[in-house]
């Protein structure tokens, strides 16, 4: 399955990419996190982040579909 993954803030700097398209066997955001953490070493724990799928907040165990856009969301600091 092909997915688009986007990164923001320190996670973007850590990975060195805004967005990547990946082929994956992961079917949930949680599995995708584990796979990409092994590749990029996010150097943080998943429990500190939220996740969005197709520009809406999602749960970590949601079912992903071909072409989905997944974004891992570090703790926010707006305002």
């Amino acid at each position: 399955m092909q997915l688009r993954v986007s990164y923001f803030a320190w996670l973007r700097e850590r990975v060195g990419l805004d967005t990547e398209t990946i082929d994956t066997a992961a079917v949930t955001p949680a599995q995708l996190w584990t796979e990409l953490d092994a590749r990029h070493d996010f150097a943080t724990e998943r429990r500190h982040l939220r996740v969005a799928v197709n520009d809406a907040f999602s749960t970590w165990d949601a079912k992903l579909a071909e072409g989905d856009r997944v974004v891992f969301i570090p703790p926010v600091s707006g305002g």
Partner: protein
Amino acid sequence: MFEISNERIEVEALRRGLMDSGCGGYTAFEGWVRNHHQGRAVSGLHYEAYADLAKAEGLKILAEAGERFGPVRLACVHRVGDLAVGELAVWVGAAAPHRDEAFKACRYVIDELKQRLPIWKKEHYIEGESAWVDCERCRAAGHGKHDHDHDHAPARPPQEEVAP
């Protein structure tokens, strides 16, 4: 009306946009770039947003305020990009038939957006370094080893959250 903008926030136009003959009270909150944070001199800020989700979540917060406090006219703009000390980073305006709803709705919007909008702030310090704000505690504890949790918890106590 909710916007993420990389242009200077024009307060007077926003205020005029909220005017309505049925409203007798108006209030606004302005978040300004402060020149210090946790004892360090700050020269400016960089804000980065996940704009598509931030817009959707911002509109959701405004709708929630309407449900809670009644017929309040609300508008909010959050800046992104590089901001100098003293610049306006976020603006929330609320107009309502009476002042109580306006104050409450304005307070609700700024409190919720600080917790929920996918926007991140990087501080530039006078001595030359830069740091993502919420990352400081992580760094202090060592990434991946710290025991604090960020879920729905402010990085700093709310009473310190008056300005950005």
